């Protein structure tokens, strides 16, 4: 193995080097901007996390698993997983082994950067080392991935994707240059190995690399470096606290535009909403199109399904809530002295908070009360005659200050009651209590969990009915708070249970969500009907849910009975 040229240089390496300098410079600047935009405490947390040995290991493992192997994508779609990991991991290994090869055999050339990239041009007989053979193997792997990518571009249905994003010009340039890089490298290497040292293929290879790197910061491929930063941010516990900035920017940049969220989005039951999925939100974020960002943010139901299917963990709902928070209102209601209602006394008892929506579905509240009585629980109903809102609707509308005023008032009322347990029947309230309330010493529990405990303790005596229910996972209860099992356990005690094709994390929003600020009634109907179609797909003859809003929404259009979980339990239990 010998060097062909003593100079070790040819002008065709210049495009590659220029692209490399450009992309590294831009990414560095972007990273510095994002870090500077973090809140002071978050920034400190992040710096410290980079020194923490456990987090260093975790960051490394996460980056390998998520960015190179694409484990999450494998779980969702094996073909897509193979395609992405073969390109990412294959390419990474070629770069790594290439540098290793130069380090082992020509350590003095390591500083050139371009030697590993154009190895076969500068070195004669390089292909005979073991390391070269492994690299050839990885190149074949990458080429296989690229072939799949080309097939997918024109025939995405065989990958199980109904809809995919329309690429922008930058993305198209990036895509075609990426496709060109590896076949060109393969051809150039093969020619060089056969003794043909014409430089045209090497020029083409270098230019393809240059184009790819130059468009990288402007298109979807920015997700490659951004996701690495995102992983370190996430592991350090950095959250989205500012609209458009800091973590929000990094999340938007980390979106690979894969379009998995388009098929997942429940709004797409109506084609008019096709351009309002999270993938388009991040795209408009990057473009700085504030008007479209506002429009997309306002429309969303905040069901969280895009986040549950997202490969990089872009938090679509949170991005939108903060985008909404950036809006200025002329009138700001003041709730800081709201709630003159006297504090309900409930020393060491269960305090039941039913919430505003349950006031509109009184059967639910009554059933909860009846079950508590049957089980012999000592309780007080905090808002039987009306109470304060939990704050969730203001929170999702982006009116964070007003929401926190309500939260603080409710905290005072709840802590003042002396209760030991706060029982909640509405998952919308429950999520707010879980995420934004500080109630030291008080256990906050949703009735599904609580009644399941009562059942396990033998305090509820069930009689199984012949009916068969399909359980609709409410967004806030399932994806929002991770409660999937206890409702099913309770239903299976009370009656038969069947599953809908899409359930649990993949459950489809009922369309009634408080999350959307701009979807009007008729457009919600389409979403509701699509969600009902999914539930009709089970063999059940009735629908069960555990959210007053889902209940009211489904009851409107459903051709079969819809009941709240509490009502089903109440009907099928007897006093012991």
């Amino acid at each position, binding site marked *: 193995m010998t060097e062909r040229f003593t100079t070790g240089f040819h002008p065709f390496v210049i495009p590659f080097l220029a692209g490399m300098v450009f992309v590294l410079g831009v990414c560095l600047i972007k990273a510095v901007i994002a870090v500077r935009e973090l809140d002071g405490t978050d920034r400190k947390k992040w710096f410290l996390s980079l020194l923490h040995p456990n987090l260093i290991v975790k960051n490394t493992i996460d980056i390998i698993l998520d960015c190179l192997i694409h484990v999450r994508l494998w779980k969702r779609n094996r073909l897509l997983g193979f395609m992405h990991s073969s390109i990412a991991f294959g390419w990474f290994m070629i770069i790594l082994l290439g540098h290793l090869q130069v380090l082992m055999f020509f350590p003095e050339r390591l500083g050139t950067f371009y030697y590993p990239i154009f190895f076969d041009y500068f070195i004669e007989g390089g292909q005979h080392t073991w390391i070269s053979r492994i690299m050839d193997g990885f190149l074949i792997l990458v080429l296989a991935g690229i072939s799949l990518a080309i097939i997918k571009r024109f025939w995405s249905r065989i990958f199980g994707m109904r809809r995919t994003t329309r690429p922008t010009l930058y993305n198209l340039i990036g895509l075609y240059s990426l496709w060109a890089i590896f076949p060109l490298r393969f051809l150039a290497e093969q020619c060089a190995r056969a003794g043909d040292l014409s430089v045209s293929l090497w020029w083409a290879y270098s230019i393809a690399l240059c184009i790819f790197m130059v468009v990288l910061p402007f298109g979807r491929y920015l997700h490659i470096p951004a996701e690495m930063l995102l992983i370190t941010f996430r592991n350090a516990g950095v959250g989205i606290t500012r609209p458009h900035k800091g973590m929000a920017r990094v999340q938007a940049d980390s979106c690979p535009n894969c379009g998995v969220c388009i098929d997942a989005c429940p709004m797409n039951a109506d084609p008019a909403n096709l351009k309002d999925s999270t993938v388009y939100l991040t795209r408009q974020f990057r473009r700085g199109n504030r008007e479209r960002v506002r429009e997309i943010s306002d429309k969303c139901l905040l069901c969280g399904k895009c986040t549950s299917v997202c490969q990089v963990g872009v938090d679509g709902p949170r991005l939108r809530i903060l985008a909404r928070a950036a809006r200025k209102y002329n009138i700001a209601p003041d709730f800081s002295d709201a709630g003159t209602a006297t504090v309900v006394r409930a020393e060491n008892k269960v305090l039941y908070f039913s919430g505003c929506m349950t006031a509109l579905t*009184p059967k639910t509240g009554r059933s909860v009360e009846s079950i508590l009585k049957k089980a012999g629980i000592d309780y007080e109903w905090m808002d039987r005659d009306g109470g304060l809102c939990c704050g969730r609707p203001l929170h999702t509308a982006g009116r964070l200050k007003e929401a926190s005023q309500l939260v603080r008032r409710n905290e005072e009322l709840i802590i003042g009651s002396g209760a030991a347990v706060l029982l909640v029947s509405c998952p919308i309230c429950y999520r707010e209590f879980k995420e934004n309330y500080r109630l030291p010493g008080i256990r906050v529990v949703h009735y599904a969990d609580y009644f399941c405990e009562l059942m396990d303790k033998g305090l509820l005596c069930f009689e199984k009915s012949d009916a068969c229910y399909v359980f609709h996972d409410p967004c806030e209860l399932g994806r929002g708070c991770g409660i999937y099992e206890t409702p099913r356990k309770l239903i299976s005690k009370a009656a038969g249970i069947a599953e809908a094709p899409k359930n649990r994390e993949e459950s489809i929003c009922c369309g009634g969500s408080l999350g959307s600020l701009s979807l009007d009634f008729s457009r919600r109907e389409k979403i509701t009907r699509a969600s009902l179609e999914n539930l009709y797909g089970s063999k059940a003859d009735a629908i069960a849910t555990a959210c007053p809003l889902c209940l009211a929404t489904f*009851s*409107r259009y459903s051709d079969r009975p819809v009941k709240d979980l509490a009502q089903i339990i109440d009907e099928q239990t007897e006093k012991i």
Partner: protein
Amino acid sequence: MNGNIVIIGGGIAGMEAAKALLALGHTPILVEASRTLGGHVASWHKLFPDMSSAKNLTARLQSEISGANIFTDTRVISLNRLVDGYSLKLSNGIVINASALLFATGFNLFDAAKKEEYGYGVYDRVITNSDLEAWFSGKEDRRVPKVPESIGFVHCVGSRDLKACNGQCSKVCCATAIKQAIEMKERFPYAKVYCFYMDLRLFGKKYEDFYVNAQRDYGIQFIRGRVSEVGETFDGRLQLKAEDTLSGKPLKVCLDLLVLMSGIVRNRSIEELSDMAGLETDSDGFLRSADNEYAVIESNRPGIYYAGACTGPKTVPETVAEARSAALAIHSYLESL
């Protein structure tokens, strides 16, 4: 064809049309699904604005159509279109070939339990307009207290309400609520009576007088604002929350009885039949008239006519007028064959 006329539905529309057709020399066949004739009106106590007895009206009509062929407790189970008419099979096994059909299939009352926030079927003191009429007519109802101190009426329950999947105005409930409020006030002079409305649509002859009387002579209180929710107090009374949109303030009222003005919705049980006949449905869910200005009683099929609330909410005088006009139209149609 034989010149047979089949009238589907034996409410006041069907009966009035039968009467008019008898007078024109025909012998119509009247098919009614329930056991008795008279439809919704037969279960009503008094009619507005003259407070005449609804029973007298239906009984008189019934006596006047004894010459017609009447099948009660009978449904049309299939309907075939022939070249020059229609062939109907009834649930009693009879097959009729008819030259002309009259749809007088009426309406359904909105199921008030669907508006769960009003508590119908949940709380003991909530009834509907039709429950109250039945009680007026002497039917026992333990939900109506012996001496109520305060009574509330909620207008537009399931009408003009997209959330209840009914966008249209039911037309008659404003006047019905006023009529029922007056009747309650007459029975319980010391009770406070409230009407919660979003608009008062008192378009008919003497309706406005009715409204003025209710306020001036009976002291019934009209509050503009939709009821948001109804709860139950510990002693079994009702607590109603609403907004008084004229004063811009939320309000809470304690009630002993709440009456929900269930609106008029399309009769779902005729969907299959209208499909078999090839009739079209309008955007509001009711049967579609040939046009809504000049030809309300005409359908898109030759020989099929409409009368009454099958094409949308109607008052009694409108229904009766349509029935007579449809009878005349059928007569002319048969003459032209």
